[in-house]
Each structure stands twice: as structure tokens, then as C-alpha cells.
């Protein structure tokens, strides 16, 4: 466990740019499958490269996290909250990495050409009805779970910032804030 009180600037930039990208991605996804208007094609054409970008950023972010670590959680944080924080972060990372791969696999399993910004990517699976169905259902289900998890994540962040005022939010806040006083974690 590192003794730093805040995530590094690189980690904060990754967090907030990905937050924006992922929330946009989920709204684009749920919106595009609900319309037959020409927006459908526009949204699909953003969805694919944005998904690929999120996959790359997520892998970079995971590597950075494994290398530089994270500020510890406050010592007085109740055990259930600590556990929830840890598990939800595993789930967030899993979703960030799995969703683009599932999407790529699903498009491949439907024998669609995988075209991103005019570039044709290789199919990562052969056409297969069963795989396509499995991956499509997973993509949809995980999208809703991912969005729910993000709402919980936002609620928890705000809870730390406004109610507990324990420095956890400040560790990741995009700019230094005067509100919370970071307390040494360990």
C-alpha cells in the first residue's frame, strides 16, 4: 500500500477521461438500439471506435495501477464498505475490459465486417449462432449492470465527499479541493 494521499496525475486523467467516455458509450449504446432514425448509423459509427479506445485506455490504466498502486482507504472505514469498495472496483475493471471484447466478438460471430473508422479489424470469432446469442445477451446485460454500478460508484464518491469527508473523493478529484482533509491511510 502506498503512502500517497492522492492518485497520480496520470491516474486522475485516465479516470476522468474514461468516466466521460464510458458514460457516453453507455448512453450511445442504449440510445442506438432504440431508434431506426439515421442517428442509428451515426451512433454505431461512434460506438465502435470509442469502445476500442476504452479497451486500450483500460489496459493502460490497469498497468499503471499495478505499477504505482492506489492511495489506501481510510483506516476507520467500516469493513463492509471497504469490501464493497474493493469488489466494485474489480467489477468496474472487468466491465471496462470485457465489454469492448464482447462487442468485438459479437460482431465477429455475426459475420459482420469489423469496421472501425474505415479500417477493417480481424474477426476474433467465427460466425456462430449460439456464440452470437450468448455474447449479445451478455453485452446487453452487462451494459445495464455496468451503468448501475457506475451510479453506485458516483453515489459512493459523493458520500465520501459530502458526508464522510474522509479524503477518498479528494484522492481522485480532478482538481485539489479544500473541502476534505486527507488523512494518512495507514
Amino acid at each position: 500500500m502506498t503512502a500517497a494521499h492522492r492518485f497520480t496525475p496520470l491516474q486522475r486523467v485516465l479516470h476522468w477521461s474514461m468516466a466521460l467516455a464510458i458514460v457516453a458509450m453507455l448512453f450511445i449504446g442504449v440510445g442506438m438500439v432504440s431508434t431506426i432514425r439515421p442517428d442509428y448509423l451515426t451512433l454505431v459509427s461512434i460506438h465502435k471506435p470509442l469502445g476500442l479506445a476504452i479497451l486500450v485506455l483500460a489496459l493502460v490504466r490497469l498497468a499503471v495501477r499495478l505499477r504505482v498502486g492506489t492511495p489506501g482507504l481510510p483506516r476507520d472505514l467500516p469493513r463492509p464498505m471497504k469490501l464493497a469498495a474493493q469488489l466494485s472496483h474489480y467489477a468496474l475493471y472487468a466491465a471496462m475490459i470485457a465489454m469492448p471484447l464482447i462487442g468485438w466478438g459479437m460482431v465477429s460471430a455475426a459475420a459482420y465486417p469489423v469496421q472501425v473508422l474505415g479500417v477493417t479489424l480481424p474477426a476474433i470469432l467465427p460466425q456462430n449462432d449460439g456464440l452470437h446469442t450468448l455474447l449479445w445477451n451478455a453485452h446487453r446485460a452487462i451494459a445495464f449492470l455496468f451503468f448501475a454500478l457506475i451510479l453506485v460508484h458516483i453515489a459512493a464518491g459523493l458520500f465520501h465527499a459530502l458526508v464522510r469527508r474522509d479524503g477518498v473523493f479528494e484522492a481522485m478529484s480532478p482538481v485539489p479541493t479544500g473541502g476534505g482533509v486527507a488523512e494518512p491511510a495507514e
Partner: protein
Amino acid sequence: MQRPSSPGSHVGSLVLIAAVVAGGAAAFAYTGGFLIPGRLTPAKLVDALAPPTGPVLGHRRNHAKGICFLGSFTATGAGSALSRAQVLAKGTYPVIGRFNLGTPDPGTPDGDVRVRGLSLDIEPADGQPWRTAMIDVPFFPVSTPQAFYDLLVASGRKDDPDAMKVFAAAHPEIGAFGAWARSAPFTASYAEERYNSLNSFVFTDAAGADHVVRWSFLPAAQPEALSADALKARGPDYLEGEIAKRVAAGPQSWLLAITVAEPGDPTADPSKAWPEGRRTVEAGTLTVDRIVAEADGPCRDINYDPTVLPGGMRTSDDPFPAARSAAYAVSYNRRTAEAGDYPRDAVPGAKP
């Protein structure tokens, strides 16, 4: 550590947090159309295609009756004047195609179906396929995807004899289709049909100039005109047997003619034909070499989504390709999930 002393002082913060979560969830639900019952979703459009007895599981939700073929497209290179796509550059490219009938029920007798279709997946070596799904009608029945949905709903209202009259009054363009459907003769073969894109697309040439186009595949075979009754007399699945025999006896071919719009032509409305005399480019020849039953045929796994286009081709201001793409994806998702209901060893022509 600054800990407020009384729990009451947290109420404002907790209300704010609850509002942020509720607002986020509501915005998501709104974007997904869950709060807007009137939104025409792809699922609703596909639902509306179903016959009164419900969709036929495992099959395409429209143009459900069809047969696969293998062949090739030989481009003359003349199309390169319009698009830089490799598929129009001089050369020969493999094709996986499908002849089909415009019905949601693969068990419909041939003589009961007015609209015939041709779908192509042309695969040049650069990995950028061109998919197109065309029909033999010279113009589309309606001007917009919403009107198409309204047409499906109105024609499904068997309880309301006025539903179609009300629809026709609001969408007079349907009259031309009605006149065509009543007067145009049937032909005796899939090989004798002219198939039209109807939708317009934008082709971009190597110099970067855009050309708005529509295209047609013109048959080499001489059409044999048939009345509906004469076609019915030949049997419910006559067309599939006929095309299989005909192609076994010799390859069948079509000429690809690409028509270029002039300023002011109705590019956004496939119910309106463009005036005669437009520049037309003869871009190549489609050759059909081998017919394969659909159940385990190479076309079964392909979604002939007309927005699967190579670089050098893109959608235009015509709203239909986007709507078709969205709806075809739903049809594909459903039928592949139901693949067990359409066994790959199903006997061709047997009732599903």
C-alpha cells in the same frame, strides 16, 4: 477529520446523492426509449412485420422465403469513375447471394407474393464487402420508414376496413405501388427479374468527388410474363426448383447499371423514381453459378444489411438504409437465437 456532529446535517447531502442517482437512471431510461412508448424502435418495426399467426421462428423476419447461391461479380472498372471501392475496380470477386420473396412466412406459396428480392454479399480481397438487398418493384411503396411502419400496422388491422383507406389518404405515394402490384405481370423465374436498390447511396471517386446513385441488376434472361393464376398453377415452391434447374443447366447473369442523380432529383425518397435519361454506368456483371438450399446454405448466416459498404460508398439522405440496418440487426439477433427452430438439415420446401 471534519465530522459534522448531528446526523440531521447530512440530510441535504443524502438528498443530493439520491437526486444524482435518480437523475442518471432517468436519463438512461429516457435515452433507451423506455419512457417513450411512441418511439419507433427497431424491435417494434420488426414485430409489425410478423404474420397474424406470429413470426416464423429461426427465419428472417421479412423476405423469409429464399434460396442461397454462389457466384461472382466481374467489374468492368467503369464504376471506378463513381467510387474508389475495390469492388468496382476491374476484376472478379466472389459473391454469396440469396433470391427471396417479400413475405414474413417461408411457407407462403410463390403465387401469393408480389415482391421478389435479390441480396448480394460481394467480397473483394481487401476485406471490405459490399452488401445490398434489392427488390423487383421499380419504386418503394412509401416515402419514409415511419410510413412503412404505419403501412404494416394499417394492413394488419383486419378489424378496421377503413385503416388502409385512411393510410392511403395520408400517404398518396402508395397508389403507384398499388397500380404496379395490380398490373405488372409476374415472371416465370428469379432469373428473369430486374432488381433495384431503390435507396440512394453516395459514391466517392478516387479524386474525392461525391456522386449520389441508385443501381439495378438487369437480367440477361428474357422475361416470360405470367399471370398470378398461371404462376400458382406451377406449384407453391416453383421458383426455387426452377432457379436450381436453370442454374444447373448454365450460369445466369445480370448487368449492374448504376444511375447517377442530377441536382434536384429526389434522393431521399425511394418512392419516387428518378427521371429518364440520367447518366448510367454499366459497372459489371453478376454471374450465378450454383444454387444451394438455405437451411445449411452459405447465405443463411449473412445479414444483408445495406449499410455494410466498402470505403468509397456511404449512405445518403435517404432514411431507409439506417432503418433497415437497425431492423435487420434485430431480425438477425432473433433468428440466430432461434436457430434450433430451423434445423440446418431442414428439407427445402417443407413447411417449417
